[in-house]
Structure formats: C-alpha cells, structure tokens
C-alpha cells in the first residue's frame, strides 16, 4: 500500500513538473513570436511601402481614365450644342466652308477719308 501511494506521489510530481515545463516553453515560444528582428521589421516596412505605391498608381490610373471619359463627354456635348444652335437658326442646307478674313484690307478701306459736304458739292458740280 505504501508503495502504491509513493508511486502516485511521484507520478503527480512528474506530471506537475511536465506541465510547468510545457507552460514555460510555451511562454518562451510566445515571446519569440511577439518579438521581431530588425530584418523582419525592415521587410514589413518595405512591403507596406510597396503596397502604398501600388495603391497610388491604381488611383492615378483611375483618375486619368475618368478625366479622359469626361473630356470626351464635353467634346461631344460641345459638338451637339453647336448643332442644336444650327438647328434653331434654320440655316437650311447652307454649308459652312472655310472663309478667309482680311482685316488689313478692311482697315485700308476704313482709313480713306471722305467728307459728306465735299461729296455733295462734288455731286452737284
């Protein structure tokens, strides 16, 4: 009987020891997991910057594409607005050709001095 109690006692001690040892090792493991080395931190930083860069480029591309779309819309609206005005004015079938303008010749015409009284006298001669 005494022997049996002794064995149980030893067994219990052993179990306790094992559980302690296990818990200790677990703690060490956790500590190891929570602690980072400089290299690991640096790698993480690099990864995060790369992620940020990719996000920025994606946003830029999205903005670009939206701008292009808007521009196209504006152009189409401008064209259609012109056509709308054309329709309002009953232009009919007149074609808009390239018309050249000469303001230099016009200014020559405008600078020719003419007196009304002199002209009337000239007509009466």
């Amino acid at each position, binding site marked *: 009987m005494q022997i049996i109690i002794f064995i149980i006692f030893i067994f219990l001690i052993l179990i306790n020891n094992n559980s302690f040892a296990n818990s200790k090792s677990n703690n060490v493991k956790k500590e190891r997991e929570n602690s980072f080395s400089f290299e690991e931190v640096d790698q993480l930083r690099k990864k995060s910057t790369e992620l940020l860069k990719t996000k920025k480029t994606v946003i830029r591309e999205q903005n670009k594409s939206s701008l292009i779309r808007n521009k196209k819309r504006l152009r189409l609206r401008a064209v259609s607005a012109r056509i709308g005005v054309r329709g309002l004015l*009953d*232009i009919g079938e007149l074609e808009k050709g390239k018309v050249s303008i000469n303001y230099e010749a016009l200014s020559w*015409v405008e600078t020719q001095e003419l007196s009304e009284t002199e*002209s009337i006298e000239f007509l009466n001669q």
Partner: protein
Amino acid sequence: MSKTLLIFFFVFSISVKTDAEVVKPQKKQNFRIRLNNSITENDTKLLENEIVFGRGIASKLLGKYELLKDKKINNYIGKIGTGIAAQFGRKQVKYFFGILVSEEINAFAASGGYIFITTGTLKILENEAQLAGVLAHEISHDKRKHIVENLNLNDISSEQNIYSAFNILGGAVRTALEKLNLIAFQILTEQGLPENDEYEADIDTIQTLQKIGYNPHSYVKFLNNTLLISKRKFSSTHPSTELRIQKLNEFLVSKKISKDKGKLNTDRFGFYVEI
C-alpha cells in the same frame, strides 16, 4: 480602327439626337424672340452692333476678293457714294466704299455702311450716272437691311432685327451671331437677294438718281448692258434682270420720267475710272 470609328459615330449620333429632342418648339420660339428683340433704329448701341455685323461680312468679302488699293478711283467712288448715302437719310452711319478685283459683274452691300463694287462692273459702266445708280442700289439694300431680313429670323415682325442680340450675353447667342454672319456672307456671294428686294432697291435707285439730277434711264441702260453680257459672265446673284428691267420701264413710264432729262457726267467718269 474601323470598329472604333463605328463606335464613335454611334455615340455621336445618340448625343445629337438627344440634344435635338431637348430643344422644344417653345424654346425655339423664345430664342427667336431674344434674337429679334428689337430696339428703335436710332439706338446708338444697336447701330454699333449693326456696324460690327457689317464689318464681319466686309472682312469676309475682302478675304474672298482682292482689294484694289487705287486712291484716285476709290476716292472718286467714295465721293459719289457718300453724296448718294446722304440722300438716304442715314446720317448716323458712316459709309465706306471699296473696289474688289474681280471680273464678276457685281456689287455688295454688307451691313453697317460697307459697300463694295467689282472691277468687272466698273469696266462695263458707261458714265457717272450709271455708277451712281449701282451705288444707290447697294445703299438702298443697306438702308432697308435686306440682308438681315433674309436670315429667316424676322418671322415675328419685319421691322424687328437681330442687332439687339449682341447685347445678350451667352456663348450660344455669340456662336449663333457668328453663324448668321457667315450665312449673310453666303447669301451675298452665292445665293443673292430675292427678287422683291432687288426691285425695292431698283425703285429707290431711280428715285434717288432723279433727286440728285442724274438721268434715271442710265440705270436701266446699265441693267440692259448686264443682260447682254449675262450669257457670258454675269453673276448668278442677280438672276431676274430681264424682269427687273421690265418693271423699271413700267415705273419710269408711270412716273413720266423723260429719257433725256438728267446729267450723265461721262467725261468726269472717264477721267477718274481707268481700269
């Protein structure tokens, strides 16, 4: 490439269609009213706008035709023209006269006092009375604003005009006015004014020539000369010359205007006009 083009045209046609659907008849009418919102003829702002409109047409005419920069002839035509313009009672408008180098037998009245005559017309003129007749005819068009009437905007009232539209701000109106200027230019150079407008100007011409003391029959003679040449090169912008001559002869008979009455000033014309 062709696929993208097809897509573009498809999108374009949809956008145009939707715009056309948006413009309702009521809005059209309102736009016309805004354009035709008339002010009295003596309004200075309105006159300024008329001149701006006329300058636009004149600059286009000078872009199409070369200007003859001969001070002697230009001054002579200017004197005759200014004297005639004084008879029309538009003292607030300063008239400008230019000679266009072209074999075409034609003359133009851009709005706002800009009058042009071609060298082709000067070549077939026989005397000063005929020159006065041509200038009087164009000044009459200018005074009666025939070119504005023919822009199809005056369906509210013939007395109303578009010049007040210059006072309205807004891109659409500005674009519309530029378009109108182009149409006016095309009417002058390609289509010509309607028969009634030509006849009105003809009657004004006869009356003015008579008032100044020129022989009114000289103008009919000029029209006859153009009719003779018409088969060769007379401008298509005056298609009904024969009918105009007939109507003018009837008018001269009804007013009992003698054929021999009035000056011709053939010598003076020959001295100044050497083309």
